[in-house]
């Protein structure tokens, strides 16, 4: 067949065909085909490992995140954080290209480390990888050792590094890998038998909410518990605008991280995003080690506070008791606006546990619970959580399903709202239901990372956001005769 013979006319899809498909994608039949997908992922709710690694790297004092691999990745991570937090997100990279693919990235790393150190004067360089060096098998251990030997960076500059291949796990696993490496590096040789700093090590996990971190700190201060947050994004991604740009606006102090190995207790609040770190800490750190769910809602916050009281032998402060009472007051006052409302929830495993427990407490129904990349273990544990309440009886857990699967669920088995990150807005719009933005990233609303969702205060914040939105919708959409003064 000649090239000319293959020419086709530009076509317009007939309107009736568009109508047919538009309706068809909302059907049970479509849902079945959609769920039969094996190769194609559409609208996932997870990102890749190095993104999480960058969040941790950024969260240490004077630390420059350093991407070993393709430059585009570094730009994508920086952009993602800047869009979410509306803050600078410094990170550099060694810009491997074709010759790096052939010869390996050692020369890029040497030059990159040398320039990054000279220009940005970091106290620590945290190195993590993109797919490219992972596929070609770069040996970071040897490269970094060689970089020191050849004088590209000072002998004593800490350079933790983590392998964070994007074809394995998600951003939460990169978070875990980088955190473990940083702690291994900083605590090396710091353990002193019998020494106890008396401090709590708090590991918040991958959390795009700076106010959550501030809330943890406020709680510790009310208790009078000395603490170190590993790793602390609160000042880094919520820095003041006062006429000075600071490349390193905060983060966990390196000496605090170093002595964390002699802490009184280590508490991880996201066991899925800190699993390997905690496994290592379990063996290496002094003091007690606890992994527990994020303190979403009343009961999980109660457990968190009681654990703090137990670990440090201090009573729960009166102020927090009163705060609990006020939060419960808010929840009982507003229960009618959430009771029986059905929700779809999508996000990272640890956040999902938190959101689901809060919904169950309110008498709301977590109906479609979806994690787009996780394990059977998660599925089992989530089912167990749902089984703790009659409001969880109708909930279904979907693992390794994406937001296009979720759309099918919403169209065939509707709910009243979605809780998730910005990416769920397309599904929410198609289903004609509100999206409550809790998670990461939130790139279409302002300041939500400045409002905590954990603790008693976080419960009030979530409740306020959700209940008032439903009330707004009622006021905006009801017919005249149903419009009234009070709600």
């Amino acid at each position, binding site marked *: 067949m000649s090239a000319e013979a293959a020419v086709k006319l530009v076509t317009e899809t007939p309107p009736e065909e568009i109508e047919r498909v538009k309706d068809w994608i909302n059907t049970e039949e479509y849902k079945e085909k959609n769920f039969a997908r094996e190769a194609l992922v559409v609208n996932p709710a997870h990102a890749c490992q190095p993104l999480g690694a960058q969040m941790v790297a950024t969260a240490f004092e004077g630390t420059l995140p350093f991407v070993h691999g393709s430059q585009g*990745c570094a730009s994508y991570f920086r952009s993602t954080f800047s*869009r979410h937090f509306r803050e600078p997100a410094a990170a550099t990279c060694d810009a491997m290209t074709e010759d790096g693919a052939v010869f390996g990235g050692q020369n890029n790393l040497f030059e990159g480390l040398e*320039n990054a150190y000279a220009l940005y004067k970091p106290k620590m360089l945290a190195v993590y990888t993109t797919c490219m060096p992972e596929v070609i098998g770069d040996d970071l251990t040897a490269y970094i050792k060689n970089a020191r030997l050849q004088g590209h960076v000072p002998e004593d500059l800490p350079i933790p590094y983590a392998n964070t291949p994007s074809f394995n796990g998600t951003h939460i696993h990169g978070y875990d890998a980088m955190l473990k490496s940083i702690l291994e590096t900083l605590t090396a040789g710091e353990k002193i038998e019998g020494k106890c700093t008396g401090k709590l090590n708090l590991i918040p996990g991958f959390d795009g909410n700076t106010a959550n971190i501030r809330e943890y700190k406020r709680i510790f201060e009310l208790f009078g518990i000395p603490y170190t947050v590993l790793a602390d994004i609160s000042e880094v991604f919520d820095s003041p605008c006062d006429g000075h740009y600071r490349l390193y606006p905060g983060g966990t102090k390196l000496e605090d991280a170093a002595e964390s190995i002699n802490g009184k207790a280590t508490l991880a609040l996201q066991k899925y995003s800190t699993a390997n770190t905690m496994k290592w800490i379990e063996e290496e750190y002094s003091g007690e080690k606890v992994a527990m769910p994020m303190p979403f809602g009343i009961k999980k916050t109660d457990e968190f506070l009681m654990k703090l009281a137990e670990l440090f032998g201090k009573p729960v402060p009166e102020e927090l008791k009163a705060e609990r009472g006020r939060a419960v007051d808010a929840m009982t006052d507003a229960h009618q606006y959430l009771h029986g409302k059905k929700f779809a929830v999508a996000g990272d495993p640890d956040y999902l546990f938190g959101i689901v427990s809060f919904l169950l407490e309110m008498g709301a129904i977590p109906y479609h619970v979806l994690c787009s990349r996780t394990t059977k273990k998660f599925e089992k544990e989530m089912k167990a959580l749902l089984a703790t309440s009659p409001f969880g009886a109708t909930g279904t857990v979907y693992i390794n399903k994406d937001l296009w699967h979720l759309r099918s669920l919403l169209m065939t088995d509707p709910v009243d709202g979605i809780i998730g990150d910005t990416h769920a807005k397309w599904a929410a719009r198609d289903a004609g239901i509100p999206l409550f933005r809790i998670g990461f990233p939130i790139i279409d609303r302002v300041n939500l990372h400045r409002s905590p969702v954990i603790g008693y205060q976080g419960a009030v914040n979530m409740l306020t956001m959700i209940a008032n939105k439903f009330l707004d919708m009622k006021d905006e959409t009801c017919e005249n005769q149903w419009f009234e003064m009070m709600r």
Partner: protein
Amino acid sequence: MYQGDDKNERAPIPGITKERTEKLITETLAEMPEKAQKKRAPHLGANEPTASCCAVKSNRKVVPGVMSQRGCAYAGAKGVVWGPIRDMVHVSHGPIGCGVYSWGTRRNLMQGIPGVTSFPMDFTSDFQEKDIVYGGDKKLEKLLHEANELFPLAKGFSVLSECPVGLIGDDINAVAKKMEADLGKLVVPCNCEGFRGVSQSLGHHISNDSIRDHIIGKFEFAEPVGPYDVALIGDYNIGGDVWAAKPILEEIGLNVKSVWTGDGEVEKIGATHQVKLNLIHCYRSMNYMCKVMEEKWGIPWLEYNFFGPTKIAESLRAIAARFDETIQEKAEAVIAKYQPIMQAVLEEYKPRLDGKTAMLFVGGLRPRHTIGAYEDLGIQITGAGYEFAHQDDYDRTSPEMAKGTLIYDDVSEFELEKFVEELKPDLVGSGIKEKYVFQKAGIPFRQMHSWDYSGPYHGYEGFKIFARDIDMAINSPTWKLVKSPF
């Protein structure tokens, strides 16, 4: 070929001299390791508007470690060229990240019903370890079958390779060829792995080549070819730019048969070889295909500039000059019609902006193309540079800038901070990664890749919004709060 520049040299900007600029460059470079200094020095320079070519070097590798703002070939392919084509499914082939980060973050708006006739979504093969080990070709084949079944009205598929694909020896070209036959629809492979080349720019070029090899010439318009048929090339409909630009061309009597690629339709793109003239806005990302169409089908092309009333009028006259008197008269009528409207915009905003300065750092076009719009508002440009421009872009930039202004190619965060600190512009126009660095320092900023969640900025309608946005950025009372009284 290029006719958009005015030939009058800019008046010098008070305080900006070649000596000061060169001193600033020298001082900045002095803080770098010797090797980095040597590599970076050719990319920085003081402008010489009358020189035959711009002095700075470009399109070289990023210097490792300096914190460049550049992206990769995949970003140039997916984000820039392919993503805006609304009726195709664009598959990010490889691990999960690239597709997620580039999902909806360029603001190339599109008409259609999402998931039915348009696909502003993230399609990916979400590579796992086993795909790296055993290869992803089979998965790709299966994926395309699934996509075709679930999205039956898609007019075709693009397969955009991420880094691992090219490293593990997959052959997406063979899969695409087989699947095109199987599905009876376009399946276009694009080998745009992120490690290729030095910036997004190679991704544009590779994508242009894919369009050349797989799309152009494969379709013809159902209606007869007319004398006023044109194509709009290199407008990506950021914040609705195409919707502000296309009506102007139609108002002067032209038929815009296809748009590359903002709100684009692939079959119309494939029939573009039938038009009489290609009008190109973003020269950097699309000049390749203009040249191909010129060589193969004899279609002339013309660069134009739809930022700000001065450049719009110049461009409309240049475009109309390629046609007959009917078009020329209509062009004059359109310019006259909008003159008082634009005058009203200037009267509102110029008094608050006159005499201000701005520094720009964007992709491959906008620093030079927006200068006229700033100047319409009375704002002078003291520094400009590009993430991924080439020599021909800088040659087009020099005459648009005053003597001694600062030119910076692939500027690092370190350099740009120093430059802004010294030149103290009233506004910086650049990208998301730069935005908050300068806003923390109390310097007004507008994102000039994404129009900072606003737009359109093209055409007459766009200028109204541009003027409002620039005024809003510079004159927001919030900047007065930055310094605390205690």
